[in-house]
């Protein structure tokens, strides 16, 4: 009986990859542990090892194929004389024209949601969030010699999530700096450099690790301007993936929006689209204050239309209405914008018109955009993947209550991640994170 060799998932967020090289050919014997192929994921090039022993009976996916779905059969393995069973239709469709796997628009993002485009930024091109972040850093580093990037694996490894890919080559080791695994130390060092006038970009491999350094972010970066009577500014950006990725467990799946947004002296930004990522990261780097820039790992590979203009920058502190509606306001940020838009689509099918606000910045909060919307729709639902208690949703609900209570036709409702550490099991993890139907249910409770 032939054994199927499947396209492996080599990272928690990988859904497809490029089969860049076969190291075995039909007829070769393989032992378990032999490297049989190389695969390029959204993060790195990885080797695929054989699990079983036998002879390669067939190779179903040719070298160089892109967009090969995880779990597609890529080869079969069996004993001498055995024939490959009728190869199933390959689960991938070779895309001769597609320049890159990541240029494919993910199904989750529907272009009609971009009907409210960025005003006056001209030409756009499909861009992944990953590319947008890289472009933002590179553009700012070209323009300002005081800007540099440091963090774990940002240089020679090309970034744990490939955000900084190629930047070491362009900017050299003085400006793209690999640090040891020493968050407390390198964050303090970067804050000290910022106090002396440099403009560091600190990459946390994930914001979960920023807890090792949170004293330097809060006590040193955020408070020193005030404590020094305005003398010691700290122009620094702390950036990296925040929140849940996929199946990485409780210590690596936490949203820090509420934690950092609590503290005066910090700005907190959470982009959703590629345009958000590029425009807001450029603004964050230029900002004379410490900015916590919360990215999302799952969004890194997603493609959006993004302005190409060299001058493109977005203001910190301004939300964006992603979808216009009249019956209810749904306020979300980061990947939850996606959930909110999907919910709005479902609601539209049921005759309910939802307005979706992408906060973009958590602190300072764009109260005006929220309040103007709620005055029109008279209802509000907040959506976040972080925990509900003292979360951003609590702040949205209170803000609305304070500013437009008389316009409300129903109590504000918040949708949030479940109040538990993130479980590992696939079914439990799915239960813990807000889904579009949670938002739909929340809306229907108040309409």
């Amino acid at each position, binding site marked *: 009986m032939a054994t199927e060799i499947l396209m492996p998932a080599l990272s928690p967020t990988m859904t497809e990859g490029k089969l860049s090289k076969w190291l075995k050919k039909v007829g070769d014997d393989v032992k378990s542990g032999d490297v049989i192929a190389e695969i390029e994921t959204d993060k790195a090039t990885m080797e695929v090892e054989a699990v079983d022993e036998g002879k390669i009976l067939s190779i179903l996916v040719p070298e160089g194929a892109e967009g090969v779905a995880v779990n597609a059969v890529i080869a079969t393995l069996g004993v001498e004389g055995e024939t490959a069973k009728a190869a199933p239709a390959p689960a991938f469709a070779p895309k001769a024209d597609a320049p890159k796997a990541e240029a494919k628009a993910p199904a989750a993002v529907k272009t009609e949601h971009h009907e409210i485009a960025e005003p006056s930024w001209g030409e756009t091109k499909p861009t992944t969030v990953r590319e947008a972040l890289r472009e933002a850093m590179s553009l700012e580093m070209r323009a300002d010699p005081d800007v*540099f990037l440091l963090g774990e694996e940002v240089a020679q490894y090309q970034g744990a999530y490939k955000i900084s890919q190629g930047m070491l080559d362009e900017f050299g080791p*003085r400006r793209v700096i690999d*640090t*040891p695994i*020493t968050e*407390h*130390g*390198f*964050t*303090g*060092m*970067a*804050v*000290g*450099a*910022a*106090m*002396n*006038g*440099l403009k560091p970009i600190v990459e946390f491999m994930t914001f979960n690790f920023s807890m090792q350094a949170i*004293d*330097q972010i809060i*006590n*040193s970066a955020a408070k*020193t*301007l*005030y*404590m*020094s*009577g*305005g*003398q*010691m*500014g700290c*122009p620094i950006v702390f950036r990296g993936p925040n929140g849940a990725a996929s199946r990485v467990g409780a210590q690596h799946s936490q949203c820090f929006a509420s934690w950092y947004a609590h503290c*005066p*002296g910090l*700005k907190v930004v959470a982009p959703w689209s590629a345009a958000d990522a590029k425009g807001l990261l450029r603004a964050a780097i230029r*900002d*004379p*204050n410490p900015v916590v820039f919360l990215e999302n790992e799952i969004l890194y590979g997603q493609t959006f239309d993004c302005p190409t203009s060299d001058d493109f920058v977005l203001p910190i502190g301004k939300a964006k209405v992603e979808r216009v509606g009249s019956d209810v306001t749904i306020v979300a940020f980061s990947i939850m914008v996606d959930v909110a838009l999907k919910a709005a689509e479902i609601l539209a099918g049921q005759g309910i018109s939802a307005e979706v606000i992408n906060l973009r910045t958590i602190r300072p909060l764009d109260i005006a955009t929220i309040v103007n919307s709620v005055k029109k729709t008279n209802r509000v639902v907040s959506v976040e993947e972080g925990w509900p208690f003292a979360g951003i949703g609590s702040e949205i609900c209170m803000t609305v209550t304070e500013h437009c209570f008389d316009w409300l036709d129903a109590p504000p409702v918040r949708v949030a991640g479940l109040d538990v550490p993130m479980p590992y099991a696939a079914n439990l993890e799915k239960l813990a994170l807000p889904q579009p139907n949670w938002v739909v249910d929340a809306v229907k409770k108040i309409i």
Partner: protein
Amino acid sequence: MAVTQDKTAKKNAKKPEPSMGKDELLQAYGTMLLIRRFEEKAGQLYGMGLIAGFCHLYIGQEAVVVGMKHATSEGDEVITSYRDHGHMLACDMDPKGVMAELTGRSGGYSRGKGGSMHMFSREKNFFGGHGIVGAQVSLGTGLGFSNWYRGNDRVSLTYFGDGAANQGQVYESFNLASLMKLPVIFIIENNRYSMGTSVERATASHDLSQNAAPWGMASLSVDGMDVMAVKAAGEIAVAHCRAGKGPFLLEMQTYRYRGHSMSDPAKYRTREEVQRMRAEHDCLDAAKKLLEDMGVTEAELKKLDDEIKARVQDAADFAQTSPEPDEAEIWTDVLVESV
């Protein structure tokens, strides 16, 4: 508890040629005396209720900052912990501005918003004044990083106590500075007690200068009660850093005469121990004796003392007459307003 300072200091300290001539020593003596008198006055104002909160006096340790000041140049950065008044005065910051910050007045260096532990002067390259034990060590490494990044020849003087020497980020910083060869002089002011816990009770390795060894960092243990020994060691460290050889660790064997803060009952050491240190190792007494040997007269020293007392009194007067910050100040300096 035995004070082991003499043994270690004599073993390691560099005491060859005098590192200062008469004029320079007189100047150093003046700065040490200014710090002593300033701190005595601060203690007095605290007792009168004019200074509140935490107030950590530097009395006894003056030779450390003054000796290092004489080993460095304009433009070198200084950063320290919350026991920071002496460092500011050694950086030539105005005693009026420092004292007015202690009293929480608008004439203070932080316009009354920082207090004893949080004062800064960009003009004098003094980067604070930090209240989280050990945090300034990483920040000071960042000051050294900025000099490395810019390719200038400045060094960062990063001060911390024997208590902070047990914090993890100190060793993260040692590693980073050694790895990147950053021009940072790490200065442990070992005054024997982290608050009420003696070095022997807090630190497994009793010779803190040896804590540089795992990172291949050069280090010296120094008699921190001798201003000329401090200067001589400081010059070695500064030359090492300016030559691009990376960081340097100086362990200053010193002693504070007063409590950890104003509210310290000081039950962890005997009165006799403090008296012995004051009588036998005081940095001002030692410098004064040297100056007299060099021919400086009693009258000259008296005149200097009077001038300093007058300066400190001026500072105290200013600190009491400078108005409290305007109430609108509560909302300023949270963020830099974007241009």
